[in-house]
């Protein structure tokens, strides 16, 4: 143990004294949160160029109602209510009579879209006014659907925006046909938003019922995702250098000198312990930083203090298992280039949770989310995410998954130590997966 602590102390001090560590503390959140920061920045700089849309109305009565509804939507959504700054593109409509040759008209309008004169064109079919009871009985696949022809990107919100005025316009025509006066349209068509609220709870000390509070994105998304992002980021930043560090020690012939003084297990565990300490240092920096920022913003109550012990347990377990694995892989490599080829294996336990987080957030207690979060490699990030989401998880799951994570971590360290001992003084081509398994089994 003494040797493990000494090696850990040296490696820890050598790491945190480097400029790279200090720079990484600042750069890592920017890199990991960069995508979301980018989205936020793009949202603050929306495209506000007018979007010209042509409407070909085969009902003969809907176009003007749709255009009117669109103009009302424009007036409602175009400007920020506080800053009065334009925050959305204005949709400008032109109504075109349908040609006898529908395909020729579609081609001509498509060419106008291609040339940039139009953003899109809508074609309201003859049956679209009463899709449940089509008077024309068309067998066309687009019957009962308003066609929107455009070359805008898949994630452009134009289709979603247009759906509102189109349906609003069609409903107004239907109401008029039923004899409802135009003065009643607003009342009939008024939308009532559904607001999400937290559950009502009782104050344990005073016995008073606490009122539910309005739930925003910060509650439901930012805090759970932020916790998972933070955990993954610290784990990756703390464990990824292990692979190259061990390879570098091996390439610079430092390893044999150390192996004369400490066993391979002591050497590996010293390095792993140093990485755990580095991760705790980084996490303290971020957790304290986040707490101070939220306090300054008057949102200290948002901090999920109850989850912090789980965060740290999972952090230590995840860093330990990944660093042990990285040390074993690094021991098998003779050069940093070899190590780079194997780095993807290390990133998987962190990257897979990032890829599936949306699925988990949609159905935190669904079969996929539950199964993945009980798989020890993904438990730290996914179980933490599920625990942070509203509603939480069944009480047994964190404890069972913790037992599995600890058992898995112990197994990883044991296998890694055996691989490390065999591979650390080997030279030549990097090991295959079968070699690693054989060394782990046979020692």
């Amino acid at each position, binding site marked *: 143990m*003494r*040797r493990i602590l*000494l*090696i850990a102390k*040296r490696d820890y001090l*050598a790491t945190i004294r480097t400029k790279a560590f200090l720079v990484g503390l600042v750069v890592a959140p920017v890199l990991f949160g960069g995508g979301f920061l980018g989205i936020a920045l793009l949202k603050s700089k929306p495209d506000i160029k007018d979007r010209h849309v042509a409407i070909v109305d085969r009902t003969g009565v809907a176009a003007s109602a749709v255009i009117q509804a669109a103009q009302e939507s424009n007036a409602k959504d175009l400007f920020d209510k506080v800053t009065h700054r334009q925050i959305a593109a204005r949709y400008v409509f032109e109504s075109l009579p349908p040609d006898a040759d529908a395909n020729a008209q579609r081609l001509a309008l498509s060419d106008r879209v291609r040339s940039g004169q139009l953003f899109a064109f809508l074609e309201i079919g003859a049956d679209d006014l009463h899709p449940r009871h089509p008077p024309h009985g068309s067998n066309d696949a687009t019957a009962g659907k308003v066609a929107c022809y455009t070359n805008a990107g898949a994630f452009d919100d134009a289709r979603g925006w247009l759906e509102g005025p189109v349906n609003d316009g069609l409903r107004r025509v239907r109401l008029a046909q039923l004899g409802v006066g135009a003065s009643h349209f607003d009342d009939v068509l008024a939308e009532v938003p559904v607001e999400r609220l937290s559950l009502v709870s009782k104050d344990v000390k005073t016995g008073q019922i606490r009122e539910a509070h309005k739930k925003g994105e910060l509650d439901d998304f930012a805090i759970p995702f932020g916790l998972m992002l933070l955990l993954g980021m610290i784990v990756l930043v703390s464990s990824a250098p292990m692979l190259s560090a061990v390879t570098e*020690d091996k390439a*610079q*012939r*430092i*390893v*044999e*000198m*150390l*192996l*004369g*003084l*400490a*066993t391979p297990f*002591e050497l590996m565990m010293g390095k792993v312990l140093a990485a755990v300490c580095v991760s705790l240092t980084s996490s303290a920096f971020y957790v304290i930083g986040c707490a101070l920022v939220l306090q300054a913003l008057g949102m200290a109550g948002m901090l999920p203090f109850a989850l912090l012990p789980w965060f740290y347990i999972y952090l230590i377990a995840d860093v330990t298992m990944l660093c042990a694995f990285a040390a074993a892989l690094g021991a098998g490599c003779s050069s940093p280039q070899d190590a780079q080829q194997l780095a993807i294996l290390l990133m998987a336990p962190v990257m897979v949770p990032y890829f599936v987080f949306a699925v988990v957030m949609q159905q935190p207690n669904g079969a996929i989310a539950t199964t993945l979060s009980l798989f020890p490699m993904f438990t730290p990030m996914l179980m933490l995410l599920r625990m942070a989401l509203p509603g939480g998880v069944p009480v047994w799951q964190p404890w069972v998954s913790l037992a599995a994570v600890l058992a898995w971590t112990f197994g990883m360290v044991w296998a890694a130590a055996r691989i490390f001992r065999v591979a650390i*003084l080997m030279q030549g081509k990097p090991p295959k997966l079968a070699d690693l398994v054989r060394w782990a089994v046979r020692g």
Partner: protein
Amino acid sequence: MHAVEIRNVTKTFGAVTAVDDLSLAVPQGSVYGFIGPNGSGKTTTMRMITSIFYPDRGTIHVFGKQMSGARSELIGYLPEERGLYRKMAVRPLLEFYGELRGGRKVTAEVDGWIQRLNLSKWASQKVQTLSKGMSQKVQFIAAVVPEPKLVILDEPFSGLDPVSADAIRSAVLDLRRRGVTVILSTHDMRVAESMCDYIFMIFRGKKVLDGTLTSIQDRYGIDTIQVAAEGGLQFLEGLPGVDRVRDLGQMQELRMTAACDPQEVLRVLISRTRVTSFSIMKPSLHDIFVRIAGPEAEETQVA
């Protein structure tokens, strides 16, 4: 009790047998020289003594205790493949290595060795600023602080200039005087002859020589003539009773057959050229090494 006792040790790597049924006993307080061609098993044997490698078969005892894998503060090891943390300063690095083995602060011992090997000026410098010779001195200190009972030095003199080599040699002999057992490997036969109490040669994993220099030479008898003659090699062909000639440049070594009469060789040689030196001797360690492990091409076969 021997410092090191190796009994019937075998170590294989895949299909290659690096050490084959080796037995060896290293007396305490001696300097034991390991010689042998590259890849013959010297380093593997040293790594097994330090527990870096485990033998497949056989046992190794160090000061009577069987090596089980744990590192012993009794052993100091200087590996052949030198490497130090390049970004650490010399003194903290040596204190780290010393504390790692000894389990206690070794500041005073480190300072003593730094002064002794003239590294005081560099004690606060980073390792990456040191020359190769100075780096090797630092590594030597790392192997002997705190003072172990057994020091294993794999090629301690390779790449050193004569001044640095003398400093290390003097330090090694000083360790022996203080009762420390020293095992060193070398390719320099003069080092083995001059420094080692015992010499062990390993060839293709097997022990081929083991004993004092005298006992080893006695096995071969007085069968060598060292000669320096004007014209050199060209006058040495066809000498009676001489079966091999080894050209050393300014002089040549002749190996005599059992029936060879050195006086007759000298008489014939004088009749051919002017002889400036003629010595009858036991074979040198170098010659013995080459006889065992050297390719036939190195020697000039004579009729």
